[in-house]
């Protein structure tokens, strides 16, 4: 753990004043504390963090990763995808299939080959797309490939024929809606409405033991930090600058000689893969994946997390995701019906009065301070990405 921390410290030195480094540090510290409090502290201790909280945090971090994925394309390239839930879910399904196969003959029907839902829909043998999913590495490959490929296909079609802006958003929504419908179908062989559930263990570790949960949680945190740093780095390369350039003046970028569609496609694929990873980490922690994840509403909700946090600032997206979901958990507990009102209001108010999200606010406040001190060398450069 500590070695990791020091690593990121050293990174932060390289990375100058980027907001990322301190955030990553805070994130990892919180993770370390939470997990050790869960494992080391006795149940009755004041500092004990319940497994419930751990799984909850783990879920938040997965969502945060998803928000990161959306922010990469929306914040930096101006592509508003209302279908990112689809990539999330696909990644989740890939993982789910692996976990399903891990059950082996411990299913209720004791069938060594077939998952239970196939047995009682009396399917004779495993469909081709389930083959090999019992290999962890295959599954992990699928987690990246399936969302990646879908994103590539869709992006290649859409961006090449210059479907942009609102049209694109609506198309992505149609995409996830179509997937929703098709995964509901039992013929698809993904367990229909019930989806995949009742997982037993992953890589031989019991999914229900606290250790496994904490490990998953830590992995999620590391993954999130890693992807956050990576995305930040990418956005600092010339590639990143081109992406932003495309956002602000696509035709200009073309006239300078950039094949903007290729850039968009690859960024889209990258983002989709992040979403896929998020989904894959989400499933073992919540213990079920079903077509509900494809529903357009979910995908739009992701966008609002990013908007709240402040798009174009990777950290903001993550914070937004965590805040909104935390609010959701608390809110639904207090007044269930109120939640939708709150969420709706959040949509309206943020778009109206907080176009740059919380990070925007933070930046403004910081500017004020700096103005008083009136020296602001690199701050503007930072703004460039905001």
């Amino acid at each position, binding site marked *: 753990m500590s070695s990791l921390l020091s690593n990121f410290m050293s990174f932060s030195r390289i990375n100058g004043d980027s907001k990322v480094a301190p955030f990553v540090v805070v994130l990892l510290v919180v993770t370390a504390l939470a997990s050790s409090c869960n494992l080391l502290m006795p149940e009755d201790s004041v500092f004990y963090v319940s497994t419930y909280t751990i799984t909850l945090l783990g879920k938040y971090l997965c969502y945060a990763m998803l928000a990161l994925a959306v922010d990469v394309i929306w914040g930096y390239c101006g592509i508003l995808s209302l279908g990112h839930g689809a990539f999330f879910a696909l990644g989740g399904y890939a993982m789910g299939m692996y976990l399903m196969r891990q059950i082996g003959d411990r299913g209720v029907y004791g069938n060594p080959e077939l998952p239970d839902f196939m047995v009682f829909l009396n399917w004779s043998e495993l469909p081709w797309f389930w083959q090999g999913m019992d290999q962890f590495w295959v599954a992990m490959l699928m987690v990246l490939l399936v969302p990646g490929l879908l994103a590539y296909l869709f992006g290649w079609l859409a961006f090449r024929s210059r479907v942009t802006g609102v049209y694109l958003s609506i198309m992505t929504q149609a995409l996830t809606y179509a997937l929703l419908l098709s995964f509901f179908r039992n013929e698809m062989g993904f367990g229909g409405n019930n989806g995949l559930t009742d997982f037993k263990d992953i890589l031989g570790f019991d999914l229900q033991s606290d250790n496994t949960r904490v490990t998953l949680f830590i992995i999620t945190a590391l993954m999130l930090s890693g992807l956050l740093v990576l995305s930040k780095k990418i956005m600092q390369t010339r590639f990143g600058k081109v992406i*932003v*350039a495309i956002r602000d003046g696509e035709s*200009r970028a*073309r*006239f300078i000689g950039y094949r903007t569609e290729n850039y968009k496609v690859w960024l889209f694929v990258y983002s989709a893969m992040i979403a896929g990873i998020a989904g894959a980490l989400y499933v073992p922690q919540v213990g079920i994946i079903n077509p509900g994840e494809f529903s357009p509403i979910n995908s739009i909700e992701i966008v609002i997390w990013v908007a709240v946090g402040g798009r174009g600032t990777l950290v903001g997206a993550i914070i937004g995701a965590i805040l909104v979901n935390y609010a959701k958990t608390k809110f639904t507990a207090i007044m269930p019906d109120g939640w939708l009102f709150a969420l709706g209001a959040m949509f309206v108010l943020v778009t109206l009065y907080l176009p740059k999200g919380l990070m925007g606010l933070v930046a403004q406040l910081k500017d004020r301070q700096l103005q008083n001190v009136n020296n602001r060398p690199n701050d503007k450069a930072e703004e*460039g990405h905001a």
Partner: protein
Amino acid sequence: MSILDTTREVMRRDQVWPFLQDHSQDVDISHQVLLYVEGLNLSFDGFKALNDLNLYINDGELRCLIGANGAGKTTLMDVITGKTRCDSGTVYFGQSLNLLEKDEAEIAQLGIGRKFQKPTVFEAHTVMDNLELSLKSNKSVIPTLLATLNSEEYDRIDHVLETIGLKAERMMLAGSLSHGQKQWLEIGMLLMANPRLLLVDEPVAGMTVQEGERTAELLTSLAGERTVVVVEHDMEFVRSIARTVTVLHQGSVLAEGTMDEIQNNQDVIEVYLGEAP
């Protein structure tokens, strides 16, 4: 031909196989003409924007396009740069390169730079980055991902900053520049790519007189090693730079010649200067 011969043919040492040749052909200007525009037609539902337009630009010349609004000046540039596809006609860059079958990016990489009517720079980027992005370099994804500025590129940027006089603002966000400065930055971005052909759309719009003059100087200085086509309404400016002037009217060339010839040309007087002396 026997198989042996064929193999021999294939194996000849003094030849490179076609798939090994690099296809970035250079512009063939053996006839001094850089740009051929022939029989161009384009209509937006009914309205004929371009009407059998013919235009030849010699290498290294500085050409002014004038004409009333809707004469098709900007549309012409759109067609040349591949922004809009025309209904019929041909556009050749040099002898060999058919621009109509290429898209914006390719055309740009062939060395045709364009400056828009209203300045379009990447507002969220610093002046520096704006120039860096428009560097003449391999623009495909992976190289761009790994690209870093080497010293000589750095010097090039400096040099251009010099030329457009934005050295002091290099770290400023392009968005916070004044209108004139943006115009300059955009020209600067053109220069970075060091193009063969510059299409400049209303460069002095919204500039002060001094700025205008400097622009004029710059453009004239560019002419020679580069070819420059300028669209402008400001007659003074045109007069100050123009050697040859082409008058467009309702999508086709009305007259062509020096400023004086143009001004004495009857139909021009009728349709253009007549309306707006």
